[in-house]
């Protein structure tokens, strides 16, 4: 089962729509609620990151029998220093992002904590691709 969602940078009114859709789908499939929470928290953090930092992006969702693969590809400034970005508390978020309750430097570490597999590929001035995999069992 595959889905694709477009995400616009800066549009906080729509941030979370994709995560919400994925949550509903996983519930319908009868996936364990604790696994659903890990998936949607990781996905929502990543979706908010696109809205907060990138110009635009696409979320690719691939649900298989034993797990879910998420790929988030954005066009944006990229991440100059990934280890620094993975440090809890480090953030480059703007004041407007902080006003939305985010930008505390928790997002990437929280994605990593919830994922069974997590990778970041990034090119400064081009964009960032996150890959997140979570097993259902």
């Amino acid at each position, binding site marked *: 089962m595959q889905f694709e969602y477009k995400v616009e940078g800066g549009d*906080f*009114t729509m*941030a*979370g729509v994709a*995560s*919400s859709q994925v*949550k509903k789908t996983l519930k319908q499939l009868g996936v364990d*609620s604790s696994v659903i*929470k890990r998936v*949607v*928290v990781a996905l*929502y*953090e990543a979706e*908010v990151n696109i809205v907060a930092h990138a110009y635009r992006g696409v979320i690719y969702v691939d649900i298989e029998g034993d797990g879910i693969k998420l790929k988030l590809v954005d066009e944006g400034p990229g991440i100059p220093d990934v280890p620094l970005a993975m440090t809890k508390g480090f953030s480059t978020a703007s004041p407007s992002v902080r006003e*939305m*309750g*985010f*930008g*505390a*430097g*928790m*997002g990437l570490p*929280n994605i990593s*904590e919830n994922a069974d597999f997590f990778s970041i590929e990034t090119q400064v001035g081009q964009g960032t691709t996150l890959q997140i995999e979570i097993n259902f069992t």
Partner: protein
Amino acid sequence: MLLKEVCDLVGGSVVCGQERLNDNVECAFASDLMSDVLTLKKDHFLLITGLANTQSVRTAEMSDAPYILLCRGKQVSSEMMELACENNILIITSSLSLYKCSGLLYNAGLNPVY
């Protein structure tokens, strides 16, 4: 603690999700920072916040926190209400501060998430 007791203790008004007032909640988490809320492993808690925008409702949805107590007299926008109704989330508003709401509920026996 029943949600209707929560509402009474903080002198609150129910904005949406009235049918959940007889639900029972065991613990609460107070924060204006949604990033912190998203780190919680616990679900089915009361989110106490002063952050009045759609992302507080989205965060509650993703965190499986079906109850929001919005403090400091913040107004609930039509977008927030629509999103909360769609996800069966109860929103109570209170004119009291986040600190006072938390103190009243803690004193009445509502546990912290941690």
